[in-house]
């Protein structure tokens, strides 16, 4: 329960989509999340995939998971899923 409370939603930005024809963004995102969380089912973790025009995903992560992700070679940045407002 404590772990659950510690989790926040983050955006994991991975830049442009790789040009490789065999690149499957969703499988890549799933495998990254599974590796980082150590969980085989990431249904409760994955919020959204970005896969059509650029690469990345939104996920519920702990602070330490965030840090691991931010240090990965295929990740540009990890930042909180905050709210913006209409102007």
């Amino acid at each position, binding site marked *: 329960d404590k772990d659950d409370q510690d989790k926040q*939603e983050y955006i994991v930005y991975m830049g*442009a989509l790789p040009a490789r024809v065999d690149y499957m963004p969703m499988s890549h995102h799933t495998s990254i999340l599974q590796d980082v969380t150590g969980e085989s089912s990431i249904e409760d973790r994955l919020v*959204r995939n*970005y896969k*059509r*025009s650029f690469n990345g995903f939104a996920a519920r992560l702990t602070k330490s998971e965030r840090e691991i992700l931010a240090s990965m070679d295929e990740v540009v*940045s990890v930042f909180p899923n905050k*709210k*913006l407002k209409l*102007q």
Partner: protein
Amino acid sequence: TTTSWNFMGLKESKRTKRNTIIESDTIIGVIDSGIYPESDSFSGKGFGPPPKKWKGVCKGGKNFTWNNKLIGARYYTPKLEGFPESARDYMGHGSHTASTAAGNAVKHVSFYGLGNGTARGGVPAARIAVYKVCDPGVDGCTTDGILAAFDDAIADKVDIITISIGGDNSSPFEEDPIAIGAFHAMAKGILIVNSAGNSGPEPSTVASIAPWMFTVAASNTNRAFVTKVVLGNGKTVGRSVNSFDLNGKKYPLVYGKSASSSCGAASAGFCSPGCLDSKRVKGKIVLCDSPQNPDEAQAMGAIASIVRSHRTDVASIFSFPVSVLLEDDYNTVLSYMNSTKNPKAAVLKSETIFNQRAPVVASYFSRGPNTIIPDILKPDITAPGSEIVAAYSPDAPPSISDTRRVKYSVDTGTSMSCPHVAGVAAYLKSFHPRWSPSMIQSAIMTTAWPMNASTSPFNELAEFAYGAGHVDPITAIHPGLVYEANKSDHIAFLCGLNYTAKNLRLISGDSSSCTKEQTKSLPRNLNYPSMTAQVSAAKPFKVIFRRTVTNVGRPNATYKAKVVGSKLKVKVVPAVLSLKSLYEKKSFTVTASGAGPKAENLVSAQLIWSDGVHFVRSPIVVYATN
């Protein structure tokens, strides 16, 4: 909108040049609070099938219909109990911005008779695709939704995206969802137009700071709404959009301060919630020291309210008769109250007046300098944002606590100025369909109406307020020269900001790496249509800007450089450019020098390249901070 396009010279007349066939193939993506699909502004009547390039869908969810005008809809708002899953607009905002950019021409539109006219967007023949990311249930717009909207809009093949959304503070590019989305859009040839924000008039408040997006400040038009207050002893004029007609009848006046038995003088004066005593305000006009709480007076049975505000350059809608007065006028009312035994006043229905002082910049929008990249000027451009009449959603009230429902309403903000520039960009693109986002942005910036620091009390920040000036849609079609910057130029720009090779490869999606020269390159040398440098306060300076222009005017043209309005010493080399063919490029340097501005001050000049027909104007801004 019913006035702003006429004000900018884009009139509804056969003499206004339109390339309707290409305009009809233009798709504006609107990332906002959804849309009211039943609005006449978005009717598909007279439209053929969507353009062939269109890859989007209409997944509007519950109670949503699409047509050949409104060709796409998606929503990204989280599932929340009590809030329908739909691209429908429950805030009114998305309908307003969409119609400003590309709404159909709809005759006899007004807000209860106010601002009457033909409402139309900048490109009425264009198509609209809606990406809903904001909802009352969320109380804002989520980052994950905004990124998802960009992800889809780019792949759906929209031509221009208007996004009137932002944060309170600027963030590094790689943590700013709008900058991220805009970068990938720019790489695919899509221009992103973004509102500067409403955190002004203080400096360093602009949150939209990336050079690959077009950042818009706000101004007024020549139409203003006033709400007169008639006192027992004369008249004074206030602001607001008051559609309620009390037939000129005078009602007793009561001051919030003397209408409370439960609060201290200050809170009661502000008409703070829980302070007003119903028995003392019922049937009266209540004076409140703040524009925040007239709803409280209404709830306690007041017939109307007169409120004090330090900001009366915009008129807002209230749910009952309200007039907003500046300090001096408000004090006049208080003096009158104190001088007579039975003070009375009437709050009249609003009227529209012709505002000769237009355009002047608004007080409320966010100003430069750019806190992340000091040498990139933001905002870029100014457009009408105050008191704009455009489509609204009857699923939302026109003001807080309002029980009315309207199809057209008055709204104010950089949210409103942003779609004006998107509309102009689409208008321009209909004449130059192959132009890149930077060419379109450059054309709009270098042809803008000049503004200056002396025309408005809120202009003292000069270019940090209005950027290159006020958008001029007609002249923008023929800019003569443009400053181009493509994806590789922006990657080189990021090299100069010391982005790592790994991140640059990921962001660009190719094997981009920085040369030694690029790593040493200065952000001020990005081929941007404005030139800005931060220098040390009160110390002599000499800064060099390197630029390249592309000829889009006529072959065999000779452009001469001229620098005007200068408190700077400026040298342009070469000062004459001979361009033999279209799309030929020529480079030049601009050296600005001087004694150095005082801390927190700027000095500026305008570089104008002219062949006698075109006038290609760029602001040169040098400023110092502490």
